């Protein structure tokens, strides 16, 4: 955690709502990726993140700092998305134009072709939310197994097995155009 982030956190815990907003914005790209890939549409993503960020704001007094704000917020976001899925609040998927986003991907140093991205997106959509959450947390967001285990309330072995299964499906999609998606 940077000193600026720590200052924002201290201010937010002292009741500064604007500081809370700025703090959340620092981590919003990670949370958007998780919510969008779990829920499948921008509207559902926004609904879930409104709920998640508000929950985080309400729970801020109980946040003791041991887990790191990003990790803590990720856990809240994941659970909120799962709640939305269970409540049937997932809306019809609204896939983005993978073609149109290519320049942005290239600007980030993206390496995948359009075909690869299409296959990867299909394979990701074919995973269960639980498997998606683990592979996104570890391989995209960079959390450790232990952080994922703690905040998804699953055993380390379960993290490893879910990650293995998810990676196998995603790697197959990247390597073999004929690969079909994994069963949910």
């Amino acid at each position, binding site marked *: 955690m940077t000193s600026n982030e*720590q*200052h*924002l956190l201290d*201010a937010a815990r*002292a009741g500064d*709502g604007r*500081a809370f*907003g*700025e703090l959340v914005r620092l981590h919003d790209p990670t949370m*958007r990726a998780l919510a*969008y*890939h779990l829920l499948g549409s*921008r509207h559902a993503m*926004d*609904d879930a993140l*409104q709920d998640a960020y*508000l*929950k985080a704001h309400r*729970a801020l007094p*109980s*946040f003791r*700092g041991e887990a*790191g704000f990003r990790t*803590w917020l990720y856990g*809240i976001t994941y659970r909120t998305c799962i709640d939305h899925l269970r409540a049937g*609040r997932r809306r019809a998927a609204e896939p983005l*134009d*993978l073609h149109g986003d290519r320049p942005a*991907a290239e600007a980030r*140093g*993206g*390496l995948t072709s359009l075909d690869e*991205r299409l296959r990867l*997106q299909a394979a990701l959509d074919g995973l269960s939310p*639980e498997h998606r959450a683990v*592979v996104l947390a*570890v*391989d*995209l967001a*960079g959390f*450790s*197994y*232990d*952080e994922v*285990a*703690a*905040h998804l*309330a*699953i*055993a*380390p*072995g*379960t993290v*490893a*097995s879910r990650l*293995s*299964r998810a990676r196998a499906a*995603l790697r197959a999609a*990247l390597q073999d155009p004929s690969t079909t998606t994994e069963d*949910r």
Partner: protein
Amino acid sequence: MGERDDELGRALGDLPVPEHGPGFWAELDRRVQDPDVVPLGGRRGDAADGGGGGARGGRDRSPGGRDRQLRRLLAAAAVAVVAAGGVAVAVGRDTDDRLTVTNESTTVPPASEPSPSIPGSVGEPEELGSGLVVGALPAADGSTTVLVRDDLPGDEPGCEGQPQGGLLVLGPGGDQRPVEAADGSLVTEGVDVHPSLDRRRVAVVSQCEGFLVQVLVGVVGPDGVPEELRPVAGQGSDDATVGGAPDIEVSPQVSWSPDGHRLLLTAAAFTDDGVLARELWEHDVDRGTWTRRGDAPEGPVAAVERADGSLVSITEDALVIGDERTDRRGVNALRLGPDGSTVAAYGEAGVLLIDEGGDLRLLADGLVNDARFGPDGSWLVVGRLAEGGDVVELASVPADGSAGPTVLGASLFGWFELLPEGRGLLVTVEGEQDPDGFPRPSVQRWPFEG
């Protein structure tokens, strides 16, 4: 195996993710100021997104390297899967080298008294020493030996370059003594302790980053310390079993048969294609043999055997009771009750009680990382992640579903043991900081009141 896949991470990062809709931040700002103004999922406002800023100064509570320590603590805190039950009572000190839990305490009734009803509150916590509590085993004199996971003495490197951890006995004044296996080696890395229902035998599972190091099986010695620990799976097991152990890579979930003679284990290993294949195996401790359980469903994540020999299992997509598949999801661990027939299934969907007839009852919702039966099975203590918080609530709940959970307290690390006779808890909490300023896990005893 525990590393991030950077190539896959980059590919996932190439997938587009939309920006928020118009007014997202303005709406969040309004709701933060007054949460009742905008209903959930309501129409987005059309105001321009609000900005941030306004940060005030504050103390820096984040010493360098805190994340590293945090990850180690979280590694231990991730999920506890340890058995309950036993025989003794309150905390005292023996004449040897151990801190014990005895029936001589002035604050805890003697063990001969009936088990208490469902606990509703706890008394003054007592500090016992550092470590993550992983076991509370009965000694022959009625005392209880406390087992913890902590760093081992010396400078040996351990899992993922961290200091080597292992299994230790927590002694008087917080002294720690490493537990030795039968060959004199130390029991190392991330350990979980699994006693049989009668607490005569014990299995110790050692893992690193979720991958198996070894499974050891032994007996509970007269002083409550695991003895004669021999590897039956993983490292060093080739010569200790008849016909060889199953191939296991991922740290397994284990459970004892109700009679304590067989250890059930979910064996998961990668095929040549990189696919993780799971099977249920059982180890006959008396004969030293391994047998694959052909009556298990395909791909078991967890399984327990009931007194009638039937299995309750969890797969990736179902809870299976005997031969019947249910559509229940969101549970990933099982705990066999003291009657050998009742089973608790728990995980992201809360705690489900499966009675002898196979009927299901939801006892508590939320993210549950552990569930322990009281000594007569009429109540449980569960650990669940508090809503929005970063602590694990410990709560009692009646097994008959007649009432909801009663919160007993909160633990940062979510690791706890139920004291034998169900008269209190051993709870892992944040202890004092070490010389580098990192918080260390510490064990407290919480006596039940009433």
